[in-house]
């Protein structure tokens, strides 16, 4: 607080005509605009050339308009079953669902893309999401969203945003621009492992026959808080003789086939964890760890029931991979850490649409 007497002396020295009262009035009037401008300048500086979660979801949903559906992986089918944990990872993590036992899960098979009516067989990527819970303990829920590629093409959300922009069809011609795509990958040599995988990949003839990868790495934490970086994959255990023929004309070919298979028997995957060594980079989702790394099978995912996603419980879940049980933590992988706010934005939009009944 400036004393009035100081002010008066100051005023005399300056021979100014402004009275103390006027000075105070001026301060009062300008303080808010000044604070506001300063603040927005600082914000603009901090956020320069960064992409927001809202821009990301805008790009992913594009001009497709399907209220109350996911903005990515919009098409899918709800699953329910049991995770039979063998406890082999119990020494690495205190997570209750990694101790020996049987735990219920809700899951979802999906295909990449923003349309819930897209043809099953056209999608380049397929996904498997799980929410595994130990009903007898709090903070035990593990939400997992896995995809068919073992790696990302790029290592940061900004680069992934640019990748989606390069892959997006031209708004007028509805065609992708191959030169744009080529230029993008040429500018991003880190996409090499991804492109090699893509060249060698043939989609399985069933959702139950794919291998789904965590892609991002996580830490398992034991009692003493020792960290072990891991990735995992869901490996199908499937006898090819029981896979019904796919109808190539049917837009829901994969879902209908899945329904047929579940009439007969549960669909099973082994959840296989790869343990990193200290020299492996757990924060870069474009790089595979050497194939010689130790793997441990944590248990079997046994899918027993399916429900259409319009009525099933999985529609109400945000499979945010940062919802982790005690005993599992996120690495500093920039892709992994960006997923939380983007999934939340997609979830926020579709939740509001569900509340307002815009899906009817």
């Amino acid at each position, binding site marked *: 607080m400036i004393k009035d007497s100081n002010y008066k002396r100051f005023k005399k020295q300056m021979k100014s005509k402004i009275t103390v009262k006027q000075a*105070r*009035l001026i*301060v*009062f009037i300008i*303080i*808010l605009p000044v604070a506001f401008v300063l603040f927005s300048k600082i*914000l603009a500086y901090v*956020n320069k050339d*960064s*992409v*927001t*979660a*809202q821009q*990301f979801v805008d790009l992913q949903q594009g001009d497709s308009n399907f209220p109350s559906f996911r903005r990515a992986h919009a098409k899918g089918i709800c699953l329910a079953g049991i995770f039979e944990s063998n406890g082999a990872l119990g020494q690495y993590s205190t997570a209750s669902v990694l101790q020996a036992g049987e735990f219920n899960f809700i899951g979802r098979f999906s295909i990449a893309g923003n349309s819930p009516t897209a043809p099953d067989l056209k999608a380049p990527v397929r996904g498997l999401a799980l*929410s595994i819970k130990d009903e007898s303990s*709090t*903070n035990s*829920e593990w939400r997992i969203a896995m995809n068919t590629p073992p790696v990302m093409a790029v290592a940061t*959300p*900004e680069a992934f945003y640019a990748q989606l922009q390069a892959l997006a069809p031209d708004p007028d011609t509805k065609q992708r621009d191959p030169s744009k795509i080529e230029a993008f990958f040429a500018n991003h040599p880190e996409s090499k492992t991804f492109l090699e995988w893509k060249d060698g990949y043939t989609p399985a003839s069933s959702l139950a026959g794919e291998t789904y990868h965590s892609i991002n790495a996580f830490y398992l934490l034991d009692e003493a808080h020792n960290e072990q970086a891991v990735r995992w994959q869901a490996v199908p255990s499937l006898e090819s003789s029981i896979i019904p023929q796919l109808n190539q004309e049917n837009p829901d070919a994969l879902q209908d086939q899945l329904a047929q298979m579940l009439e007969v028997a549960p669909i099973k995957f082994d959840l296989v964890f790869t343990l990193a060594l200290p020299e492996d980079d757990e924060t870069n989702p474009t790089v595979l760890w050497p194939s010689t790394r130790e793997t441990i099978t944590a248990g079997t995912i046994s899918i027993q029931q399916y429900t259409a996603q319009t009525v099933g419980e999985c*529609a*109400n*879940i*945000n499979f945010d991979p*940062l*919802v982790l049980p*005690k005993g599992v933590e*996120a690495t*500093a992988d*920039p892709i992994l*850490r*960006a997923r*939380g*706010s*983007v999934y*939340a*934005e997609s*979830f*926020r939009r*579709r*939740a*509001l649409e*569900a*509340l307002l009944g815009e899906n009817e």
Partner: protein
Amino acid sequence: MNKRKAIKYYPARSRLLHWSMAILIISMLLVGLSMVESLAVWQPVALDLHRSFGFLLLVMVIVRLINKYLTPRPRLPKKLPAYQVLAAKITHTALYAAMLLMPLSGWLMQSADGRTITVFNTFNLPHLIDANIKAYAFFREFHGYMAWLLIIMIVMHVLAALYHGLIRQDRVLTSMLYSKKPK
């Protein structure tokens, strides 16, 4: 609440609560608005702190309301026009309401998404309601709009405080700043 004795300044514990909460709430608003947009690696850490400090603020506002009931407060200047007294009363009540509703809607929103909140990595909060996407939508939007209402109210409140301090030059601003007995 006829405890308004003729004191000129807020007692120290009231000022401590007011200023610590003011700093925390303004930080919560800034962190909240940044983290819902951010894709940065610190985002999950910020979210975690947001939830923990949010719960702390819920506890603090309850303590503050109890303190308000038990503690004498300075009277507003007698010369103050009646409409300004009323405006002050309404804003203060609304600020208390917002200080309760912000953390409550945040907690409810997280329960409706089935999430367990762990406060400062030490203990888990119970779920207030079962997971439900429509309840999530309601409390998520409520939390977002309430935040903007709170920002508007804080701007009004701070402007009013500065108006007292700079223009009217009465004891209202100093009553929240100092403890010294008047000279």
